[in-house]
């Protein structure tokens, strides 16, 4: 299902103040129907507060939240046609899996037979049928996570909000559940908004993501766009691994450590400091050549690839360079020549 451009949820200048602290500082975002949207940022960036405002647990200090064009800000949580999957899962401990799933439908006043039918269907979809009569404390972390998801999805929300849904799971299970979540999202055809601090998770799952810092959106776009063309230094640093080379623009050319590096300098102020950012996989490394000379000071083997740490005259910290694991040509102490493709060099002046 390709996301349609129609916005289902619009956040319009949302502000949330707690006393003197501003948790959400004027955020505007359009979330499109059926898309998987991620709110990504470090802890304290306001992403959870924003999610809780959408769910109705926090009242915006200013701004509006529109669902299908209607302002839902004045509605209490139980009146909003969207559901939240809690970070702690918040399963009712005194109810079985089946009762947990049925709770939300009971609140809609549906007939018993209808509830039973929909619960059974949801149990099957989420592969929980065998656990239907268990209590939450008889479930593993991954099973609880699925119950929490099923309990929210069964309400057929227009938007499903997920607060760090995979945060409590171990790495293997996380990766499995990332794909599982995407599959479910396609299957039920609902808009998902996920809050996470894990940039890898956001890149893998989201159709689009917004990077938040200090209550503001720094960049919003698709994973590739954000990875390839980060809007500023913070985003560049937060997403993936990035090398930063401090220098300055002189005569329309970026210079660092007395050497010029070819990059697009259009729109940058000349005679002022600038930072060049380049990803480890975009640095070419040769044993000899006319690139930037460096010395391998450390090598980290990651299985799939090797991370070389190369000291150069360009900056104080060694540059990280990624080469395929099969490439065992370089040893610690070897002198190498590095090449930066100009298209992959990004300059920031902030």
């Amino acid at each position, binding site marked *: 299902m390709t996301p349609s451009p129609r916005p289902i949820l619009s956040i319009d200048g949302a502000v949330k103040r707690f006393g003197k602290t501003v948790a959400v500082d004027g955020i505007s975002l359009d979330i499109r129907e059926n898309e998987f949207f991620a709110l990504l940022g470090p802890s304290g960036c306001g992403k959870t507060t924003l999610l809780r405002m959408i*769910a*109705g*647990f926090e009242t915006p200090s200013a701004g509006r939240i529109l669902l299908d064009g209607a302002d839902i800000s004045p509605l*209490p*949580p*139980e009146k909003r046609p969207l*559901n*939240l999957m*809690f*970070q*702690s*899962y*918040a*399963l*009712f*401990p*005194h109810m079985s899996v089946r009762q947990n799933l049925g*709770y*939300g439908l009971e*609140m*809609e006043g549906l007939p018993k037979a209808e509830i039973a039918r929909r619960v059974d269907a949801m149990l099957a979809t989420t592969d929980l049928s065998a656990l239907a009569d268990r*209590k*939450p*404390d*008889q479930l593993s972390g991954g099973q609880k996570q699925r119950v929490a998801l099923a*309990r*929210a999805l069964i*309400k057929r929300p227009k938007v499903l909000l997920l607060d760090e849904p995979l945060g409590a799971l171990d790495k293997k299970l996380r990766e499995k559940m990332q794909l599982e979540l995407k599959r479910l999202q396609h299957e039920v055809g609902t808009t998902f908004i996920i809050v996470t601090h894990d940039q890898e998770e956001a890149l893998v799952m989201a159709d689009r993501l917004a990077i938040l810092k200090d209550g503001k959106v720094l960049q919003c776009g698709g994973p590739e766009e954000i990875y390839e063309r980060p809007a500023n230094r913070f985003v560049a640093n937060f997403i993936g691994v990035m090398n930063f080379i401090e220098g300055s623009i002189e005569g329309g050319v970026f210079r660092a450590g007395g050497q010029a590096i070819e990059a697009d300098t259009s729109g940058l102020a000349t005679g002022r400091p600038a930072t060049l950012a380049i990803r480890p996989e975009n640095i070419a490394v040769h044993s000899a050549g006319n690139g930037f000379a460096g010395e391998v000071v450390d090598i980290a083997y990651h299985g799939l690839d090797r991370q070389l740490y190369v000291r150069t005259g360009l900056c104080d910290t060694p540059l990280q360079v990624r080469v395929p694991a099969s490439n065992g040509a370089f040893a610690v102490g070897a002198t190498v020549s590095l090449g930066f493709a100009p298209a992959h060099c990004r300059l920031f002046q902030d």
Partner: protein
Amino acid sequence: MTHRASHPNLLVLPAVAWLVVFMLIPCLMVLFYAFLTRGIYGGVDYIFTFENLARVFDPLYAKIFLTSARIAGLATLLAILIAYPAAYAICLAPKKWQPVLLFFAVLPFWSNYLIRTYAWIVLLNREGLVNNLLKSLGYTGEPLSLLYSEGAVITGLVYNYLPFVILAIYSSLSRLNPELLEASRDLGANALTTFWRVTLRLTMPGIAAGGVFIFVLSIGNFVTPAVLGGGRFQMIGNVVYDQFLTANDWPFGAALGMALIVIMIVLLLLQARLTAHFAGERREANDGA
């Protein structure tokens, strides 16, 4: 610390010794006395009999047991109805104020039980504060007979044991994961339904702990009925008291006492079962709290 592994066993010794000497042995003595014959001038004659236990089930005493249970039951109900909102309000207060509020809730407890009970005489007698207040407000011409009634006894019991009930319910409420209440709202339940289906249900162990506490202490109480009941009607505690100190029938007093102990043990076992039943849920409720 491994070489000290045996110490914990030694550390409980004083407490165990205390319990054996001052709790277990006296209880066994009471049990033993219940099967003996009364001495003519008090004390016991060592002649084995079931007669005392049979008398416990005499309609006369059965009725007093029922009266005691009713009074204790009403006191329990009233205490829970007062304590729950109080504990809830304390839980809703800012974290730093909660210990202060709890301190005030428990404050009356630091004064003497008897003095606190006598204070109610000052409040409830015909010339007391309550009657004067009602008169000055014009609600009543004649002073009401508030004192020396079942109502006065229940009031005294509730007043004296309320702090414990508040503490028990507070501890249960404060351990509730607030996200459970939000989840309930999120799934479409309003505040009232959420309270009924989630909050109340998950704080049952606290209600049970506080409830059993006040019930057990009330049903066997003899000070409050003596002071505020004015001897007009008897609770089982008063009968036990009379058997030992007035009627000089120690074996029968012991038999009645045994009956009270059995009631207490049954209730405590029920409460333990209930708490165990909820234990897993409480653990779950704590996750991520």
